[in-house]
């Protein structure tokens, strides 16, 4: 919009402007974007790295490992055959972790073991493999074993030990989503689970191909989750919902563990999200 012009909202008669890029049609396209963008996002960061600590094993080009004040225990493996690995400030890598690029881990994320590949893991996450083609928005825990692939993990998600996703149908057909009753044909061969902010799964939860777990849902008491778990669902029956106060109480316990204070503005903001999702 030029100087002096005014804009009040999208106008159907507006002249379209072509922009080279990728259009996201929904949350599942964040998984598609990993394939399309992640490697190219990381390539420009190569060349500006701390030394690789002794005791690390590099498969592929060592120059494609980018450490920015990351702490790496001896025994970590970096495989850059398919793309760079970039670990931001404060990232910790424990012995026994096999990192496979393209991979990006945001500040203060802890990579606790197992194979972790082709993922963009936001700040302050705890992740243990096997993880493949996942997007973490940040402040999420997947601290134990269990395969999670081609999935989007929202903020403050906690995956209980042994939570496992399927990201490929036995028919090798395209994955379909059930978004609150609306069927979405993603066209993706590989798609795991989309977990909204603050969603939590119990130990041993099985998430089928193309599952959606709504924000704030607390899934337990059933091993296999349905294709769609409503926001703020409580348990595995699909009938119960956690209370607003209950949700806020959990948030007040969880966020400060990562040094995020829950002030009045945060409470109000979370409360409005609860109200909107459960309206």
């Amino acid at each position, binding site marked *: 919009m030029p100087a002096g012009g005014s804009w009040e909202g999208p106008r159907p008669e507006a002249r379209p402007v072509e922009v080279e890029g*990728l259009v*996201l049609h929904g949350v599942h396209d964040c998984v598609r974007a990993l394939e399309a*963008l992640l490697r190219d*996002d990381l390539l420009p960061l190569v060349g500006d790295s701390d030394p690789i600590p002794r005791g690390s094993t590099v498969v592929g080009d060592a120059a494609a490992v980018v450490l920015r004040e990351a702490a790496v225990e001896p025994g970590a493996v970096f495989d850059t055959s398919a793309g760079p690995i970039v670990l931001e400030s404060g990232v910790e890598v424990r012995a026994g972790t096999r990192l496979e690029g393209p991979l990006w881990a945001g500040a203060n994320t802890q990579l606790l073991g197992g194979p972790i590949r082709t993922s963009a893991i936001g700040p302050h996450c705890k992740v243990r493999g096997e993880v493949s083609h996942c997007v973490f928005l940040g402040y999420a825990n997947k601290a134990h074993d269990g395969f999670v692939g081609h999935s989007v993990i*929202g903020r403050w998600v906690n995956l209980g030990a042994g939570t496992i996703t399927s990201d490929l149908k036995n028919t090798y057909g395209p994955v379909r989503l059930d978004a*609150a009753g609306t069927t979405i044909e993603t066209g993706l061969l590989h798609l795991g689970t989309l977990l909204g*902010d603050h969603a939590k799964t119990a130990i041993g939860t099985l998430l089928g191909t193309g599952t959606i777990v709504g924000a704030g849902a607390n899934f337990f008491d059933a091993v296999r989750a349905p294709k769609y778990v409503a926001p703020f669902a409580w348990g595995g029956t699909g009938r119960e919902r956690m209370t607003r106060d209950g949700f806020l109480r959990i948030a007040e316990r969880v966020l400060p563990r990562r040094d995020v204070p829950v002030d009045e503005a945060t409470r109000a903001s979370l409360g409005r999200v609860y109200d909107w999702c459960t309206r």
Partner: protein
Amino acid sequence: MTLTLYLLDPDPSPGWIPFAGVRPLAELRAGAHLVRERWETFVGTETAEIFALPHLAGFAEAGVPPVIARHAVRGPAVIAPGPRARAAGRAVPARLPRDYRRLGRAGRRLLGGPPARGPAGRG
């Protein structure tokens, strides 16, 4: 000319479940960067405001620009459709040094042209 950047979240269609109405959709991650960061890199400035559903106004998360219900703005400005990732952002996160151009592939332009040819939104 100093541009102001606004990000316009789409309407909360089922495709954006489970994040529709939960967080600004411009705060989703596409590749290594948030959608917002990709637009900021492309336009060359930080986001002034994210236009989202009214109940998300005041969205309280560190690092997220002010979230507010859509309102009229005056130019010069770029109003970018939030959850669309731009290929130009592939190689240009905002925190990179300003000589990122040399990092691009030969002959490939990493930043868009002047603002008039940029992602001027639908306005």
